[in-house]
């Protein structure tokens, strides 16, 4: 499982550098509990199906989501709105799609459309019951942070090339 996490870290750093225009600092990854309650304000989830199943989730506070949205659009919104949802959804979409390249020797995957979860005290319904969830905290804009969580495991299925 751990070896599958690196493509997500690489994709996340690359997306923030090239799309958002800022560098990230990845901190030490850790195992999360599947039923952890999220205290972030917004999360965006993409599910994987195909030769593996799992999900990747980006979570952050709304202030950071607003700054990232402003970096992409020039518009600053204090509250989460349609543009914030679009920005965070597109970022997780690009991370998931780019991470597939680093995983292509292991398995062929399909990615879902992003789903947005807003509010506090929510939990993520991970697709696989047994897979461990790895969370990677990232530092951004000096003192702020967000979290990327990944759970992915082979289904044993092989799809036609």
């Amino acid at each position, binding site marked *: 499982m751990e070896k599958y996490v690196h493509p997500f870290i690489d994709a996340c750093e690359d997306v923030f550098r*090239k799309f958002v225009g800022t560098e990230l600092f990845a901190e030490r990854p850790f195992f999360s509990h599947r039923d952890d309650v999220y205290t972030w304000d917004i999360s965006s989830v993409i599910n994987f199906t195909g030769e593996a199943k799992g999900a990747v989730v980006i979570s952050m506070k709304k202030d950071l989501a607003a700054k990232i949205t402003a970096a992409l659009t020039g518009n600053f919104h204090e509250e989460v709105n349609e*543009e914030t949802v679009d920005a965070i959804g597109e970022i997780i979409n690009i991370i998931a*799609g*780019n991470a597939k390249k680093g*995983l*292509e020797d292991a398995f*062929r995957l399909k*990615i879902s459309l992003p789903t947005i979860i807003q509010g506090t005290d929510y939990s993520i319904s991970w697709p696989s019951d047994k897979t461990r969830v790895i969370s990677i905290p990232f530092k951004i804009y000096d003192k702020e942070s967000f979290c990327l969580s990944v759970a992915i495991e082979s289904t044993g299925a092989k799809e036609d090339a």
Partner: protein
Amino acid sequence: MKNILVVDDSRIMRNVIMNTFLTLKMPCNFVEASNGKEALYQLQKISIDMVLLDWNMPQLSGIDFLKQIRAIPRYQALPVIMITSEAAKYNVIEALKSGATDYIIKPVDETKFKEKVKKIFG
């Protein structure tokens, strides 16, 4: 004046693509669609010179839109550049086999984007 159909479910990404296209300083008119179904409607309504097409979208995906239009004789030569986060080789191969003229992986690199559009329009 070229009519460029920009198909992406993200408005932010449509703006990024249109702004990147504008750096070519080519006279153009943008037509926007947020999924393949809307894109089919726009294609029937307006004479389009190029489609810039995302892959993952609701209602009708970019790859299914591409397969549908390539089955219609008058759209077989229409330039379609896929602009998508789908970076795996098997995705690129599927898109090219399905009739994509070219393929760009998000985040969009402005230099590569301009090269690929210029290659098509000359």
